């Protein structure tokens, strides 16, 4: 995965002043941010209801148990069979009694998750992170590739706003079936070519797409990803630069306001 260093000028969340340390870098540091303890999350050993093929991806449906479905854009850590670390996945759909995750089998952990059979057990921790702000007037959902994952649940919460989805190939574009009514473009046409102006954009996708969307719509809410070991603020593995400060994407994000990403 590519490094994620964001050039955002606007802080996300309240930032207490850094200490009086004389270190040259001290003005870039806010450690920790005590104003943002993680909201309640829980861990449940649940089981797979179904594993459905969606183009090159897999929609993994699990029993919800006592897990909260959370705010759209929040994510869960899914235990990957045989692997030491769980994998972060945003919630795709929350049918009654279930949680569903759209997974791209790109490595050993995601391949193991996609290979799970109905009835097999899986431990899930969540919901984690901040999620999208839903107080928007003219929402437009924008997704690229596997970044379509959080949009179906988000679309439900916003009563089916317009959406633009971009994919590398027609096979990948089969995932658009998860978001009926969305406008679909396939490479070399980009989502930024198809985005109508004047909307409150809520986006998820690869880093170059998010940067391009942020340049067009400085107020856009963008869901980013970074390598994570824990997902709940323990490991500092997902540190990114937010407003010139090193922060944890799992605590401060994954949804960040785009303001002046192009800076």
């Amino acid at each position, binding site marked *: 995965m590519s490094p994620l260093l964001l050039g955002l000028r606007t802080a996300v969340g309240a930032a207490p002043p*850094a200490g009086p340390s004389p270190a040259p870098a001290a003005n870039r540091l806010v*450690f920790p941010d005590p104003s943002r303890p993680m909201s309640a999350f829980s861990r449940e050993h649940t089981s797979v209801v179904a594993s459905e093929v969606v183009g090159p991806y897999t929609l993994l449906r699990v029993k919800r148990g006592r897990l909260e479905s959370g705010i759209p854009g929040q994510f869960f850590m899914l235990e990957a069979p045989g692997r*030491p*670390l769980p994998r972060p996945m945003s919630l795709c759909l929350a049918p009654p009694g279930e949680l569903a995750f759209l997974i791209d089998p790109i490595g050993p*952990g995601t391949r193991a998750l996609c290979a799970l059979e109905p009835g097999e057990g899986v431990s899930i921790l969540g919901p984690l992170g901040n999620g999208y702000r839903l107080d928007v007037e003219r929402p437009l959902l924008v997704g690229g590739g596997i970044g379509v994952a959080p949009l179906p649940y988000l679309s439900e919460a916003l009563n089916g706003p317009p959406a633009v989805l971009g994919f590398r190939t027609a096979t990948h574009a089969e995932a658009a079936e998860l978001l009926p009514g969305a406008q679909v473009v396939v490479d070399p046409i980009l989502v930024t070519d198809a985005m109508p102006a004047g909307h409150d954009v809520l986006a998820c996708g690869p880093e170059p797409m998010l940067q391009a969307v942020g340049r067009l719509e400085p107020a856009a809410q963008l869901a980013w990803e970074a390598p994570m*070991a824990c997902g*709940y603020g323990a490991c*500092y*593995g997902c540190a990114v630069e937010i407003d010139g400060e*090193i922060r944890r994407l799992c605590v401060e994000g994954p949804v960040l306001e785009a303001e002046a990403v192009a800076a």
Partner: protein
Amino acid sequence: MKILNASGCLDALTAPEIARSLDAFVTKTVTPLAREGNEPPRIAEVEHGMLNSIGLANPGIDCFLSINLPRLAELDVPIWVSVGGFEVADYAELCDRLDDLPEVAAIELNVSCPNVDNVPASVGEIVAAARGATRKPLFTKLSPATADVAEVAQAAHRAGTDGLSLVNTILGLALDERTLQPRLSRAAGGFSGPALKPIALAAVHACYAATRLPIVGMGGISSGRDALEFIAAGASSVALGTILFSDPRAPDRVRSELTKELTKFGVDDPDNAIGLSHAEPAPHLAKAERAATVSS
């Protein structure tokens, strides 16, 4: 017998209820000045473990004392502060700043972070300087990546450490499957997780035999059975690291599994299992055994 977290594997202010499930919380290492840490990517999962190169990201001692520590004290769990530096005087300064604070239960001297340059040379010198600056219990955290960890432990012992934390991570490298480039920005990083367990057990076993100091054992512990093995090797407490990333509830689980494991061996109190693996626990005999192992 206490269950702690390994330094850097939990943020008590972000996940207070998990910190409260521990017998003591160990902070991420604090240095004299603020550090951003290394460039991302900072973590990479590998077979049977993970690599990290966080790089001692921390707010520095001033900010730690004014912002973090008062909030940590509100959690009502004993606080161990991990300190790290780049020269001997750093450790003395940090220990001096912590010495009078009632909310600090103990100090862990991180003399073994694999993710920073300029590691100070002499563990004995660092411990002696720290000892001169504080009356707090001092636990010295050692690396297993040394020719004879027991010898380093003895040097720390002579210099006045009250206990040992064994072990820190060991350097490892992972390459991207497509590009063959290092997956961490810093190339190598600290390797932790299940594969570290036998290495850590060997260090605990050797250092217990050589010093009989109290030892916080850590390195790949993920179950009550693992904890029991560390205790039998000589640990008087255990710390959980990588397992916390996948199972934040591991402290409670390991504690209850350990109780069951002890029952299997007819032991009622974990303290009675400390050092059980040592047939001849006298230090001079253990040293002779090590020599025999090397020569055979």
